[in-house]
C-alpha cells in the first residue's frame, strides 16, 4: 500500500516542491499550511510520516505541533521529520528521539533540503517503523 505523508509548512513553495518530489517518488501526500491545520490532518488522515517545519508563524511553533502529536495516543507513534532553517542560528537544544519529551521528533534536516537526502530519509524512516 502506498505510504501517506503529511507535509506541514507555512511556505507554500516548500509544500509545493516537496509534495511534487514525494508524489513523483510514489507517495501519497497531504499538506497543511498551519500548525492547527496540521494537527487536524494528522488525526483525520493518519499519515505514515509527518514532515514538519520548525518555525511557522511564531518561533518554535513546529515544536509545539510535535508535542501535541506525541500527546495524542492515536497518532503518537507517527514518525516526525523536522525541517529547520534555524539549526545554526537558534539556541534550540535540538535533541532527537521520541523519549526526549520536550522535543519529540525523530529526525532533523536543514533547509534547503537536497532532494536525494529528503527521499532517502523518508524512505528509511518509513521502513524503520
Amino acid at each position, binding site marked *: 500500500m502506498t505510504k501517506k505523508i503529511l507535509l506541514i509548512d507555512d511556505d507554500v513553495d516548500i509544500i509545493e*516542491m516537496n509534495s*511534487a*518530489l514525494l508524489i513523483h517518488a510514489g507517495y501519497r501526500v497531504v499538506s497543511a499550511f498551519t500548525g492547527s491545520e496540521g494537527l487536524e490532518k494528522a488525526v483525520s488522515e493518519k499519515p505514515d510520516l509527518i514532515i514538519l517545519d520548525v518555525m511557522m508563524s511564531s*518561533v518554535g511553533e513546529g515544536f509545539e505541533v510535535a508535542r501535541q502529536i506525541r500527546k495524542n495516543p492515536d497518532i503518537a507513534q507517527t514518525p516526525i521529520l523536522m525541517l529547520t532553517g534555524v539549526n545554526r*542560528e*537558534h539556541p534550540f537544544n535540538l535533541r532527537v528521539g521520541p523519549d526526549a519529551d520536550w522535543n519529540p521528533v525523530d529526525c532533523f534536516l536543514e533547509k534547503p*533540503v537536497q532532494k536525494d537526502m529528503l527521499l532517502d530519509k523518508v524512505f528509511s524512516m518509513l521502513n524503520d517503523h
Partner: protein
Amino acid sequence: MKIEQADILVVDDELGMREGIRRLFASQGHRVDTAETGRLGVEKGTLREFDIYFIDLKIGDIDGVEVLAEIRKVYPEAICVICTAYASIDTAVETTRLGAYHYVAKPFAPEEIQLVFDRALERRWYILEARRLRVEQERRLLEVSREKSRIRTIINAIDDGIVVLNQQAEVVLFNPQFLKLLQLEHDLTIGQSIFEVLPDQFKGVITDIFEQKDALKAIKQEIVIQPPAKLVVMANSTPILDETGQLLGFVSVLRDISELKQLELLKSQFVNMAAHELKAPLSAIQGYMEMVLDKSLGDEPDIYDGYLRRSLERSKTLTTLINDLLNISRIQAGKVRREIERLIPAEMAEATIEFFKNEIHKRGLTTELDLDKTLTVDADREELQRVFTNLISNAIKYNREQGTIRIAITSDGRYVKISVADSGIGMLAEEKERLFEEFFRAKNYYTRNITGTGLGLTLVKKIVDGYAGKIDVTSEYEKGTCFTLYLPMVM
C-alpha cells in the same frame, strides 16, 4: 608654656594687702584689678573671667568663702587663692572643698605668694590649653562628621550601587542603590560579612577577587539577577591598596545594564527573524532550481514553468524584503533625510491606483474613491508614496476576486483622514493585534499563496509615527479590513 600677661583680681578689705599684691604683680607686667568689699569682688569677678583670684577670707561685708563659691559658680575652672590670717584646718578644708586652688596664711612674704602665684599661673595655663584643645577637637570632630556626611550624601546620590569591603570581606560602606540592584530586602550592617547576603551569582565574583591576591587587578563581570534580561548588573570590582601595595579591601561598583541587555536581546531576535525571512525565499528558490536542473519530475519541460515563475516571484519578494529592511533600519537610526513639501494625498492615491491598474483589473476589483482634493499635508513625497503603495497593494493582495477597494480622503478639521478599505479576507483578532510587528504575516487558509515581507505595515506605522500621526485598523475575518490614517492637516 607661659601666660605673659595675666589678669588678676584681688578681693581684700585691707588696702595694704590690695596694694602690696597689685604692685608686686603689676611690676611683672600683669594686669591687676582690686575689690575692697566681698560684694564688689563677686561683681567684678563674675563679670569676666580672671586668670587668678586672690580672695581674703575675712572681708567686712560677706565671707570670702561665699565670694569663692559665687565666682566658681560662674567660672568652675577659676583659680582662686585664699588668703587669711585666721588659718585653720576647718577653713582650709572648706575652701578646698569649694574648689580653692591654694591657701596662703597671712602674713606672707612676697616670695611666698610669688611661689603660689607662679604655680597657679602654670595651672591656669594648662586649663586654658586644655580648653583650647577641647574646642579644636570639637571643631575637628564636627568637620569630620560634616565630611563623612558629605561623602555619604554623594555616595547615596550616585545611581550606581557601591559597596566597600575590607580584607575579611566585611561591609565597610554601601549605598541604597547597592541593595536595590541586588534586590536585597534587608538592610546591611556595617561589619557584616558580604557572603551572608550576596546572591550566589555575585559570590563567585567576590571569591575570585579575594583569591587572586598575587595579581591584584580590577574585575568586570556581568551578573544576571533576574533572567533573561530583566535585571542585569555590571560589577566593576577594584582592589584598594595601601601605599606599600598591601590589600586593604575592595570597592565594587554595580551598574544597571538591563536596558542595554534588553536592547541586545531585541536586536538578536530581530536578526534571527530577518535571517529566517531571508532564508525562506532562498530555500524555495534553491529547491525549485535544483528540481529544474535535475529534471526531478521527468523530462517534460513545461512542468517546470510554474517553478521558474515562483522562483522569480520569490526573488522579487527577497529584493523587496531587503529594501524594507534597509528602510526600517534607516528610520530607526534616524538617518532618513525628509524633504518636506506640501502634498495633496488625493492626487497620490489616484496615481497609486493608476500604477496598480493591471493587478486591479486582473482580479476584477472595483475601486470606489471619495477624495477631497483640497486637503494637503506636509510630508516627504517618497514616504507618503510608500504608505499609499503598501496599503493599496495590501488591499489588492488580501482582497477576494471581484471585490472592492474603497479609498476615502476626508478631514475632521485637524487631521487629514486617509482610509483604505478592502472587501477581502479580513483578519482574526489575534492577527490584528500583531499586525504591525516586524515580519508578522497572518497565516491561514486564504493567505497561503500571498507573498509579502511582513514589513510593509511595520514601515507604514513607522512613517506615520514620524509625522505625529496615527493609524487605526478595523477588520472582520472573511469580510475585509480598513486602515485609517490620521495625518496633521495643513490649515
